[in-house]
């Protein structure tokens, strides 16, 4: 989802597929199988470490970039109440980024390295944040759908085998529920409003529905046929970094979200959507994976804008970081004298 695991080009060997036959690797896998947590200084296979660094940092980058689409509406929030809520939510997302960078750093990578990978475009972040927020209803749609999908994905991550990541996710999950509820409440207000407000809500829903489903990443099994497949999914499952499949999570999201949409009087923009009494789930239509791939490789509506803004903010803050360091050094010297 926030870490759709797709930036690994086919044939990339930078994450070795482990041959789990060394004594250490066997012992490691036994610990994982016994549901033991792995902590920073423990022995771990290089692939495990690399997979985690990649996943946690992508997740962190997503939280940080994710502040932009919503930040876009802070100055135009319709009431002071909505403005305070939106500011708190955006601040939370920044905090989530920090928790996650902190977890990634326990694996022996520096914050600067990770930030640089984001700024030079070599690291990926979730495709969802490359869509624009055109109206106020988008703020409701994001909280309800995007944070809703995030929660679906993050709850199993709270049981991830790597201790610092699992603990960061527990912290994050506690905060996400507010995000989703404020979004749904915003939609609820629109659903009780004028015809124009209802139309604005439907329009936002139409634009966010499919991108939200894409957040769960490619199909786990039939992905190959579409030329896009969740990479290293199996290995991640075995290491208990990932605990539930993409398709399972997506189905769960559809099942809980459709009734919520109906309550708002919304029509799901999918002609194939239909309750299936036999399976006890909603059937839904095919996902446009071409759009997904396109957004991921940088051609989404806002990719360039998001990175540009992030870079500018980073550069504009450089003098503050340097001045603070210079001041700390001066003070330390004076104290030593």
């Amino acid at each position, binding site marked *: 989802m926030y870490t759709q695991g797709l930036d690994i080009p086919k044939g990339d060997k930078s994450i070795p597929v482990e041959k789990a036959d060394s004594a250490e690797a066997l012992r490691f896998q036994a610990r994982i199988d016994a549901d033991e947590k792995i902590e920073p200084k423990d*022995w771990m296979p290089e692939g495990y470490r690399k997979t985690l660094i990649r996943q946690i940092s992508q997740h962190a980058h997503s939280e940080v970039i994710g502040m932009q689409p919503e930040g876009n509406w802070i100055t135009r929030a319709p009431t002071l109440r909505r403005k305070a809520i939106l500011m*708190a939510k955006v601040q939370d997302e920044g*905090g989530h980024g920090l928790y996650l960078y*902190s977890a990634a750093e326990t694996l022996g990578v520096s914050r600067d390295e990770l930030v640089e990978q984001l700024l030079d475009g070599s690291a990926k972040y979730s495709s969802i944040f490359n869509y624009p927020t055109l109206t106020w209803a988008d703020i409701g749609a994001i909280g309800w759908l995007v944070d809703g999908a995030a929660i679906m994905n993050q709850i199993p991550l709270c049981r991830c085998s790597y201790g610092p990541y699992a603990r960061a996710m527990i912290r994050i999950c506690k905060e996400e529920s507010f995000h989703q509820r404020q979004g749904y409440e915003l939609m609820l207000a629109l659903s009780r409003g004028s015809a124009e407000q209802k139309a604005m809500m439907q329009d936002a829903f139409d634009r966010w529905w499919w991108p939200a489903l894409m957040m769960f990443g490619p199909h786990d099994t039939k992905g190959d046929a579409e030329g896009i497949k969740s990479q290293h999914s199996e290995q991640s499952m075995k290491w208990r970094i990932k605990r539930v499949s993409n398709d399972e999570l997506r189905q769960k999201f559809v099942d809980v979200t459709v009734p919520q949409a109906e309550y708002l009087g919304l029509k799901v923009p999918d002609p194939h959507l239909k309750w299936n009494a036999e399976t006890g789930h909603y059937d839904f239509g095919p996902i446009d994976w071409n759009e997904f791939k396109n957004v991921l490789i940088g051609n989404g509506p806002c990719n360039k804008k998001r990175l540009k803004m992030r870079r500018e903010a980073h550069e504009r803050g450089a003098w503050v970081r340097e001045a*603070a*360091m210079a*001041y*700390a050094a001066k*003070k330390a010297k004076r104290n030593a004298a």
Partner: protein
Amino acid sequence: MSRKEWPLYEVFIRSRNGLNHIHVGSVHAPDPKMALENARDAYTRRGEGVSIWVVASNAITASDPGEKESLFEPLAEKVYRHPTFYDIPDEVKNI
């Protein structure tokens, strides 16, 4: 861009009086005072704490997980350190 990264501080929070400070994560900051301020913003946005400690990460000395056995295993054999090691007749009360 400056390549000089702000140092890392580990953050410990006491959620309420009567409880120990517990490790919650880390922050980067140029000095301990700003580390405290950053920790407050990052880790206590919802009244998660009444007291914060920050400690420079490089000031922490940690035990090596590889030495887990030599450090902790001998204690597992000292069963006489636990009350259940001692058989006392049921008739004897309050012991």
